[in-house]
């Protein structure tokens, strides 16, 4: 049995209380370290209080509260599993409930960044172990025996010596009065009964029987429906509107404008909103509101350059939001222009300039990728009931803690007067971390003086923004006369930010290394999209490494392993953000499981790629064939290292889904702009991968180790793009530099 490590400071304590009618309710207040490795979030020393609920009734009903909202990675199953394991209960008897928003008791409650397992691993195990200990103490007291003689098994308590036994429920009330132990042993990870065993999705039955689960399904008495009308283009704003016809339509209550933020409001990182003033149409039913919207006469005008005030570490700062109505061709032109200018140096090892000057051969390639829309299946929506003294908000949201402070300021209500309940989300992908639609729903409810559910249509949602940025990156490699790699250079840019991760592989493996970045400001809003930045960087870098390997006459896997060997044995520079052994581990595993060079693989066009992001490692071999004249990914082999795999089947589902998502986005995904208008505003033109395009097989393998779990929502996704590009090369003889790969490719590789 391990003791927990000193992740908890001296203020760690457990609070227990009795539930009315008897029983034990445990809140666990502890300080646990969580770190988000992404840029902009303090990696080092942010401590947050975490609480998990365990409710046990005298009837031995066990309820475990899930702190994090669900959008498909099955945190609602995996997180309670951790508690149940240490608590030692029969998983089949556990009831799981989604927790309310309560950052004091339940911790950060942020689902995203592939962080749920990592963040809650220790605290939730602690909660389960402590509760079990208290129940054992209660039994020991009741039976007047030493606690060392008490054992448990699946919710039952035994004193083997005397043959006494009972169930947890028998002791729950008594346990709630026991002081909480400070130093609790947790189980040896090799002895798990619940965790590391596949458990079914706790909401599975509700999903397949159509129970109300999602934000869009939420109902409240007296609830009205509201839909937004936002400008048709980035860079436009409302000039005037005539609602006289709309107001005459059946079921319509009101039409008005709302202004999200007053001038000078300091925006936080997740307060991103594309349009600060929008129209709202409020009515009784959804269809009536949809019909009334069509009768609005609205005039829009260019907004020109505007100013936003951003919160910042060193104090607030003002940013100019350019007023240009952008078009894709012009964006591409501008990117080419900026790519030729000097950029910010992000990392330099050795002397890359000299190495390139003296190189026998320089290979240079440029990669491009478009804006991507999240297009979660459930469009944006949220319910709000705001009165003068309080607010209730219910709906799909990834991080209530990041929007509540904003609501507090906008509604002028203290946070304790604001209640946010999280429903299940029909997809998140990062989009639902940005709570503008809560602010909108709240303001609409306030103005309408009624409970209101705000619903976005697919067009409203797809054209609203908060996209994955438009990216480009130019890679250069210098080879000497013996085809050794002597220098590596990446210069990445984007609208409005670049995707360069300067401390990731192959940094650390090459003596002369230069990473630079630049950006172009834009009014097109962007946000986190499943592995932000990585989702492009992996594609470009892994394609480039493939081309480099070919130029050097090496097998692409051997080439990567050589570099990783160098990074392990004799690393270059500091802050290399990956474990070379674990990185090599997934590459070796995928090589083995895919039968990399075996003769029976000759019928496929194979591409390989690997990547590290969000603390986990992933490698894929993509096998392509041709179907109906089109390239088709027929099978994929995936190797993942995410430490301890909490729920193996659910984890496999995640990887398979990420593979399908990666194939779809790399081949088909993307949107274009014309004078600020998003061209692809629904699924007839924004192409999402469908059943017939999905592979026949995605075989997933996890590296078996006992490392504390890291995430899985994002890490498998980015390298899929690179593997697909590399498979396409084998399939067509051409290299692919422009995403989506189904679009016209640049004629010649540049230089």
């Amino acid at each position, binding site marked *: 049995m391990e003791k927990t490590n000193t992740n908890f400071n001296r203020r760690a304590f457990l609070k227990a209380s009795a539930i009315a009618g008897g029983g034990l309710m445990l809140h666990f207040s502890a300080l646990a370290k969580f770190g988000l490795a992404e840029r902009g979030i303090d990696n080092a020393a942010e401590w947050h209080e975490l609480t998990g609920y365990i409710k046990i009734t005298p009837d031995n009903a066990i309820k475990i509260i899930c702190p994090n909202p669900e959008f498909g990675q099955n945190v609602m199953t995996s997180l309670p599993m951790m508690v149940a394991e240490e608590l030692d209960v029969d998983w089949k008897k556990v009831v799981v409930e989604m927790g309310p928003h309560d950052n004091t008791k339940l911790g950060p409650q942020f689902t995203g960044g592939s962080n749920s397992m990592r963040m809650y691993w220790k605290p939730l195990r602690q909660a389960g172990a402590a509760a079990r200990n208290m129940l054992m103490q209660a039994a020991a007291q009741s039976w007047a025996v030493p606690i060392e003689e008490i054992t448990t098994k699946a919710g039952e308590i035994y004193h083997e010596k005397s043959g006494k036994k009972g169930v947890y429920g028998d002791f729950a009330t008594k346990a709630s009065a026991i002081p909480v132990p400070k130093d609790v042993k947790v189980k040896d990870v090799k002895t798990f009964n619940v965790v590391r065993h596949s458990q079914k999705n706790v909401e599975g039955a509700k999903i397949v029987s159509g129970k109300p689960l999602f934000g869009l399904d939420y109902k409240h008495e007296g609830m009205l429906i509201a839909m937004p009308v936002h400008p048709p283009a980035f860079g436009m704003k409302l000039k005037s509107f005539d609602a006289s016809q709309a107001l005459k339509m059946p079921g319509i209550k009101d039409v008005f404008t709302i202004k999200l933020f007053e001038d000078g409001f300091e925006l936080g990182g997740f307060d991103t909103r594309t349009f600060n003033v929008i129209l709202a149409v409020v009515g009784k039913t959804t269809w009536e509101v949809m019909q009334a919207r069509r009768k609005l006469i609205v005039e829009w005008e260019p907004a020109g350059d505007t100013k936003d005030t951003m919160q910042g570490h060193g104090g607030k700062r003002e940013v100019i939001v350019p007023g240009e109505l952008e078009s894709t061709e012009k964006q591409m032109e501008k990117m080419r222009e900026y790519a030729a200018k000097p950029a910010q140096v992000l990392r330099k090892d050795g002397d890359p300039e000299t190495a390139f000057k003296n190189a026998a051969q320089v290979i240079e390639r440029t990669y491009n990728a478009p804006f991507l829309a999240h297009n979660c299946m459930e469009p944006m929506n949220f319910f709000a009931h705001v009165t003068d003294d309080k607010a209730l908000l219910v709906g799909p949201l990834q991080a209530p803690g990041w929007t509540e402070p904003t609501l507090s300021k906008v509604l002028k209500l203290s946070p304790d007067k604001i209640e946010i309940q999280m429903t299940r989300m029909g997809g998140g992908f990062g989009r639902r971390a940005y709570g503008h639609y809560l602010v909108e729903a709240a303001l609409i409810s306030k103005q309408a003086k009624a409970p209101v559910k705000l619903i976005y249509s697919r067009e409203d949602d797809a054209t609203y923004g908060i996209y994955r940025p438009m990216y480009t990156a130019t890679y250069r490699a210098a080879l000497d006369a013996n085809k050794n790699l002597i220098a590596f250079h990446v210069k990445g840019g984007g609208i409005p930010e670049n995707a360069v991760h300067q401390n990731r592989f192959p940094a650390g493996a090459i003596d002369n290394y230069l990473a630079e970045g630049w950006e172009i400001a834009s009014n097109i809003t962007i946000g986190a999209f499943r592995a932000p930045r990585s989702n492009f960087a992996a594609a470009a870098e892994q394609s480039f490494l493939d081309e480099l390997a070919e130029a050097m006459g090496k097998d692409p896997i051997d080439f990567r392993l050589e570099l990783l060997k160098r990074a392990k044995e004799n690393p270059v520079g500091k802050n290399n953000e990956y474990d070379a052994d674990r990185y090599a581990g997934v590459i070796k595993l995928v090589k083995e499981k895919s039968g990399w060079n075996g003769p029976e693989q000759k019928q496929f066009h194979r591409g390989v790629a690997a990547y590290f992001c969000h603390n986990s490692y992933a490698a894929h071999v993509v096998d392509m064939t041709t179907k109906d004249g089109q390239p088709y990914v027929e099978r994929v082999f995936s190797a993942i290292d995410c430490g301890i795999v909490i729920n193996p089947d659910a984890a496999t589902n995640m990887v398979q889904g990420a593979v399908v998502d990666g194939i779809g986005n790399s081949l088909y995904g993307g949107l274009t702009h014309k004078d600020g208008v998003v061209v692809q505003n*629904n*699924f*007839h033109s924004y*192409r999402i991968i*469908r059943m*017939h395009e999905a592979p026949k097989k995605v075989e997933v393998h996890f590296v078996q180790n006992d490392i504390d779990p890291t995430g899985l929502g994002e890490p498998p996704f980015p390298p899929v793009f690179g593997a697909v590009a590399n498979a396409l090369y084998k399939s067509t003889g051409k290299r692919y530099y422009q995403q989506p790969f189904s679009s016209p490719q640049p004629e010649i590789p540049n230089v």
Partner: protein
Amino acid sequence: MNTKFLNRARYSRSLRTPIVICLLCCVVAFMAFTLNDNNLKAAGNKALPLIEKDSIASLKAFNQVYTVLMSARCMNCHPSGNVPLQGDDNHLHTMLPKRGQDGKGLYALKCANCHQPTNTPGLHTPPGNPNWHLPPANMRMVFQGRTPRQLAKQLIDPNQNGHKDMKKLIEHADDGLVLAAWNPGEGRTLPPMSHAAFKKAWLTWLNNGAYAPAK
């Protein structure tokens, strides 16, 4: 037909009469090669009735017919494969609904599931018609990829045109699905001429011998 002869810019008026005479002779020669058995049967006798058949008018009319039949509103449901086409650019219909045996689609993607008796209001929604379907698998009536000659011959062949005789062919101009091309739903372009103009061209083509162009 070699239209160079009809190019007024190239030949002065004095040459017109001899050219027209040449033309008529060419036409006679042409008819010997382009008439098929069905045309003769439709004509009802063995001789070529030059007065009732006007191949010039017929072929000119067919040029117009061809532009309509090859436009998106018609051709999209006469694809060369087993998936209907969609849009002015004739891309494969999203979600790849299949023809099936009877042309009415398969399983959860039968045409009439989404294509209802009338157009669905709004942009990018399914257009409608009570009889929405593709030609059946055993008589696929492909337009896509057909040259004018191929299409003309196919259209008048009862073994390829849904067993239509001349009477039914003439009536077909007013068929419900044909008319639907001119009521395609919001946001879709119309065929290159009005239905009235199309019908006139269709009838002219048929009534003047239903000639097939040389190519």
